[in-house]
């Protein structure tokens, strides 16, 4: 299956027509990580925005897994949008295939595609609610 076809199956990109999916798939590269490899590094500048196409990853703080990320999830958006280094590691749990969007290009990607931005905002809101529910 092509990258564009895979993207079309993910909730984040569900509103985009095939030509837009092709454009995104051709503009950005994919990367594959072996299980155990670090993808996002806490405290280091210049991280990218990643969308999981295949496999599982874990958000880790001090080596302890806090949250699992699956196909269709994305990560790195907070540091990509704020410019601050990530506050957690993201580590591949299984072999992990991601679309990699450099932070510098994420803003344009979202501004050019408001429906994608709205999808992401909803998913962020959902994450925030889930996080708040975890509080004792």
């Amino acid at each position: 299956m092509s990258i564009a076809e895979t993207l079309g199956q993910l909730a984040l990109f569900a509103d985009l027509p095939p030509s837009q999916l092709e454009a995104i798939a051709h503009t950005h590269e994919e990367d594959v990580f072996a299980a155990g490899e670090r993808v996002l590094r806490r405290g280091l500048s210049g991280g990218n925005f990643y969308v999981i196409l295949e496999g599982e990853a874990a958000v880790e703080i001090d080596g302890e897994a806090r949250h699992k990320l699956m196909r269709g999830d994305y990560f790195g958006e907070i540091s990509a949008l704020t410019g601050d280094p990530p506050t957690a590691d993201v580590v591949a749990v299984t072999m992990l295939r991601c679309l990699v969007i450099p932070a510098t290009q994420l803003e344009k990607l979202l501004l050019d595609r408001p429906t994608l931005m709205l999808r992401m905002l909803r998913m962020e809101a959902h994450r925030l609610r889930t996080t708040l529910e975890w509080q004792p």
Partner: protein
Amino acid sequence: MAAVERPFPPGDYDVVVVGSGPGGLQTSYCLRQFGVRHAVLSRDDRPAGMFQRFPIFQRLITWTKPDAPVERGSREYEWYDHNSLLAEEPEAKALVPGLMDRAFDLPSRAEMEAGLAAFAERARLEIRFGCTWESTRHEGEGIVLETSDGEYRCRAVVFALGVTEPWKADVPGLEHAAHYVDTRKCDRYADRDVFVVGKRNSGFEVAQGILPWARSIVLGSPRPVQMDALALSALRVRYLHPYDEYARGGPGTYVIDVTIERIEPVGERLRVYTRGTTWDGALEFEVDDVIAATGFQTPLQDLPQHGLVTVAEGRIPALTPFWESVSLPGVFFAGNASQGARGIGKRGGGASSSSVNGFRYNARVLARHLAERLNGHEAGREPVADVVPFLLRELTSAPELWVQKGYLCRVVSASDGVHLDAGVVPLSTFLDSRGPDAYAASVEVDETGTIVPTLYVRRRGEIAEHQLDPHPLHQYESAPYQRHLEVLVQS
């Protein structure tokens, strides 16, 4: 004529290198330096790999500057010579500049081929030519390669096969298109309308080649030409005339952002149906020829059937930081396919592993890694007497760091007050491995395109990143840098 005995008969080796292009030659040279017993197999009858045939328009896009401000053959000269392989012996170093006729600032294909042949000869590399790798299997801890000459057993295999097998994107009707590799004769495009699918190196190269002949040329692909990326691309030095023509509004040459929905024959001609990606709407083109410049793939033979994981729609193997398949242990890649290890890609920056310039350094790092892994212990490390000047000199002039920005770094370890040169390693390996206190020097590029010398300090397992001030001349050996680094090293 007496039969010449061919080297490397079938049998057991620690490492087998497959391929005799620049990746294979550099890997074999470096493995020998590190004392790794290996065989080199090639289906060709002479060295140089893809440079026997490509680029089809006979001119490289990577430069060599024969007269540079530093001595030819010095380490610093490597920055000015992106096409020669690396060697220790003076007679095998910096060979391409001496073979250029100076008719153009970039070497021709033939000059590059001659440079590689001269390297193989002067470095006295042994290669078993006419030996074709046919299939592969794992057997216990080892790997068995079946070849036209028999079976080779090894602990690790390094495939240096290039990324040279024509690849066509999955577009309905693209089977009616010629591939880039079949476009050698430019004059056959005289007075014809041509649609080129693809806007990367080969798309622009073929468009440049046929520009003087064709009646009209359309270059189309989904991805917009990114001028900021182009400014750093090797393409800019040679193949931008079609883009220049379009940007200035020249009728008959167009560079457009579209998906190609399908291609249909209409009598003698072809109709190309497209839809805009950076603009709304659809366009149809009726042309005499469609050329697929959709790229190349690594000739992976049966490896995908054994579970080799790939990126870029099956074209490139997915690799670990030391260029080992993420899914097939013991299977390594050198040369152009080493781009399958992307590195940490800070700020979206990529490695320069798809050109000789970059992958020659990958090969040296790989050879040391293989030597250490097969021997089960680290290679000897030289003491560094004065760590601050050493790191600043590396940041200023190490060609590995300057070519492979943010991808390869120079590491100095520090334990009990003794500094040891731990050599050049992939930056991600340094960042992700635990180990003794150490420093890693890396040349990086920030969001604005400014080059930023960067020092990573590992202390008690924690890594801190320190961006040093940029310098307009990229010279970091002066007192302010010295003071900054001394603080970082002492703290």
